[in-house]
């Protein structure tokens, strides 16, 4: 980055690209060229900045000015005001919602204040399609160090001492996993990177691969060195075209630079990486299922042991780690195990990336030290609940996790505490819910997901989850009984106790945790046939308040099924037998005359 005076970084994550960030880049470049500034200022497409809520995001360095919700048409102003005249473009600056002050620098934005970026250290700072930028930020230094200064067992020791645990959900100690695989005697071993992110609402692995693919490549090579493997495989979702493309570019650049291939850095160590594609099966996040999928079969898990570290891909010892886990490795080597283990809590070291989403003000990708509380994440980083609504619950761990409530907000987040609280870390989805969310429907939503994604191999997951879902469906339709609640509990516990793989063993968690924390809400459904959150269609109806209705006919004109009748300037009426409860009238009414009862 040395030769240019200034850089304009434009977020090229999937979210911002969906809001035309590519066009912003093109427009910026064109404007700079027209002003003959293209040699002074470089425009870079980077990985995700994390602040997706306010995307597309543009940052100008070295002064760190942070522009949010930028449109392609803003490019001219950014160049003219900021670059040419040297003053920040006021109208695009982030406004602190608490005091409405404009904030120029990322460091002063609440969203970033409490974050510690290790796995995401380069996301939003480097051009992921340029290996030199990665190298410029100490990239491949760790690999060089390992190959020349340390023996494999010394590297494993560092990882063990750092306390790094698997970020994919299980939390198994990474160093120990490497050690076990390293001790297997075999002429061929494999390093597998699990990039089959499937948790609906989590996108950290994709963001890392899009924003900093080299960190994963470097870590896989280090892992290969440690366990004695010279072949790496990245198993990635085919639905991630941008990540795949950037990974491919990174792989070819690394090979060109001799950082992959034969005799890496002249040390005699060979390592190559191939890409394998997932095809839309959540269960393939499970190691054994992933391996079967890579072998060209149905992604059905098999009983462990044997563990992949003993018998994995093509029957060979295989070390499987997920993207985020790998992304931590080079920093640990560079900065030392002590540094890493100084961050985090007693048994969970370092940081965790979360995809913060749902009814929170600042949706985005965040990285926080382990041990931070949910309250800090949701209210400080997340900026609290949208539209001034009341916080109700937060689901961590995706479909495998549970709903945590007000009482859990001050628990320090780590692997063990979340399990104790009835949820789990999972891959890092964090969905915030407010008072409008029906917890029975939420449980049903997650069950629907598990149902869709169950491989069908074992009885409890195949049929048990189906029955769970059916009972929940009954309850949301007002046809449930209190006995059904008992049945939910019993069945949930048996499914947890008897399922073959992690998917089934955790699938009832959303049901059990909502039953535990929101029993009242379940009871309201089964006893009174009411949905307190007003979400369950079959239990609610839309009504027009005659006192508030002005007869503007807007609802009448927008009703898709003709359920609303009434003359202009007279009170309107909804025919409940026709109404499909789509809520359009409710959204359209300007006089709050339509209510949900």
């Amino acid at each position, binding site marked *: 980055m040395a030769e240019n005076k200034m850089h304009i970084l434009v977020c090229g994550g999937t*979210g911002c690209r*969906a809001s035309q960030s590519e066009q912003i880049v093109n427009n910026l470049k064109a404007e700079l060229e027209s002003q003959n500034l293209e040699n002074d200022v470089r425009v870079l497409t980077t990985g995700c900045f994390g602040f*997706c809520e306010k995307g597309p995001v543009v940052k100008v360095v070295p002064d760190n000015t942070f522009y949010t919700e930028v449109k392609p048409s803003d490019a001219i102003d950014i160049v003219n005001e900021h670059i040419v005249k040297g003053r920040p473009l006021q109208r695009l600056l982030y406004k602190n919602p608490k005091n409405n002050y404009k904030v120029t620098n990322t460091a002063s934005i609440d969203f970033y204040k409490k974050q510690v970026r290790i796995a995401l250290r380069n996301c939003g700072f480097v051009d992921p399609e340029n290996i030199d930028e990665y190298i410029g930020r100490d990239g491949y230094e760790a690999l060089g160090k390992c190959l020349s200064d340390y023996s494999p067992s010394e590297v494993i020791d560092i990882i063990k001492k750092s306390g790094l645990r698997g970020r994919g959900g299980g939390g198994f100690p990474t160093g120990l996993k490497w050690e076990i695989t390293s001790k297997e005697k075999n002429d061929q071993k494999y390093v597998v990177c699990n990039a089959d992110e499937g948790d*609906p609402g989590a996108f950290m692995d994709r963001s890392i691969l899009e924003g900093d693919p080299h960190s994963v490549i470097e870590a896989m090579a280090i892992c290969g060195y440690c366990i004695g493997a010279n072949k790496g495989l990245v198993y990635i979702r085919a639905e991630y075209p941008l990540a795949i493309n950037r990974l491919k570019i990174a792989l070819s650049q690394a090979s060109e630079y001799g950082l992959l291939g034969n005799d890496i850095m002249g040390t005699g160590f060979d390592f190559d990486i191939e890409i394998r594609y*997932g*095809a839309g099966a959540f269960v393939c996040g499970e190691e054994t299922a992933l391996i079967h*999928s890579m072998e060209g079969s149905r992604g059905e898990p098999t009983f462990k042991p044997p563990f992949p570290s003993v018998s994995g891909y093509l029957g060979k010892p295989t070390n499987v780690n997920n993207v985020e886990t790998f992304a931590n490795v080079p920093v640990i080597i560079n900065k030392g195990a002590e540094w890493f283990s100084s961050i985090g809590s007693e048994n969970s070291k370092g940081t965790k990336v979360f995809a913060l989403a749902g009814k929170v003000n600042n949706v*985005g990708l965040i990285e926080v030290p382990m041990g931070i509380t949910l309250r800090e994440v949701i209210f400080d980083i997340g900026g609290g609940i949208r539209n001034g609504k009341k916080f109700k619950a937060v689901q961590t761990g995706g479909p495998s996790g549970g709903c945590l409530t007000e009482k859990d907000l001050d628990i320090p987040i780590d692997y063990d505490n979340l399990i104790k609280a009835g949820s789990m870390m999972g891959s890092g989805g964090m969905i915030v819910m407010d008072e409008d969310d029906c917890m029975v429907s939420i449980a049903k939503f997650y069950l629907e997901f598990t149902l869709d994604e169950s491989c069908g191999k074992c009885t409890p997951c195949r049929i048990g989850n189906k029955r769970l879902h059916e009972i929940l469906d009954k309850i949301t339709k007002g046809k449930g009984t209190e006995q059904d609640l008992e049945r939910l509990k019993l069945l949930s516990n048996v499914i947890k106790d008897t399922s073959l793989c992690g998917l089934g063993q955790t699938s009832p968690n959303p049901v059990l945790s909502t039953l535990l924390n929101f029993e009242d809400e379940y009871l309201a459904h089964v006893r009174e046939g009411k949905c307190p959150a007003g979400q369950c269609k079959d239990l609610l109806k839309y009504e027009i308040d005659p006192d508030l209705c002005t007869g503007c006919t807007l609802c009448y004109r927008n009703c898709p099924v003709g359920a609303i009748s009434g003359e202009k300037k007279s009170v309107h009426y909804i025919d409940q037998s026709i109404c*499909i409860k*789509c809520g359009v009238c409710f959204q359209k009414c300007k006089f709050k005359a339509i209510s949900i009862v």
Partner: protein
Amino acid sequence: MPKIKLTEYATNLVKEICAKFNNNEGELINVLHQVQNKLGYLPAEIQELIAQELNISAAKVYGVVTFYSYFTMKPQGEFPISVCMGTACYVRGAEQVLDEIKRQLRIDVGETTPDGKFSLSALRCVGACGLAPVVLVGEKVHGRVATVDVKKILAEYKSGCLSDKE
């Protein structure tokens, strides 16, 4: 001697792709990806040919195709619509949006409109959670979609085709 009919293009394509992967049965999923990318879908005849080229049973190929939601045996519409049903989108009303699209197009998830214009699918998290709820039409992302926007979005593509014809 059962006969299976295929176009010359498809036959050569499948054979080339399989050959590229050394006709290795372990590469089945990669082969299916590439073939679907080119042909848009994976009809039974194509699967039979892939099975023959990789020397595996057609049953296995079909077992794999039906396991992974990414693979489809039906041709997609001109404008494939995907509604993100990730959790972030769900809690921001994706289900209602999906219902509205179903109602407008009179098709269910996994189906294509009779005129071949639209096909509808639900997918899990496109990772644009900041824009939730998200609807993809082809490659284009429509963010923060409310039920009332559905008609407008669909009209964009419907009218687009009309003007093409004119």
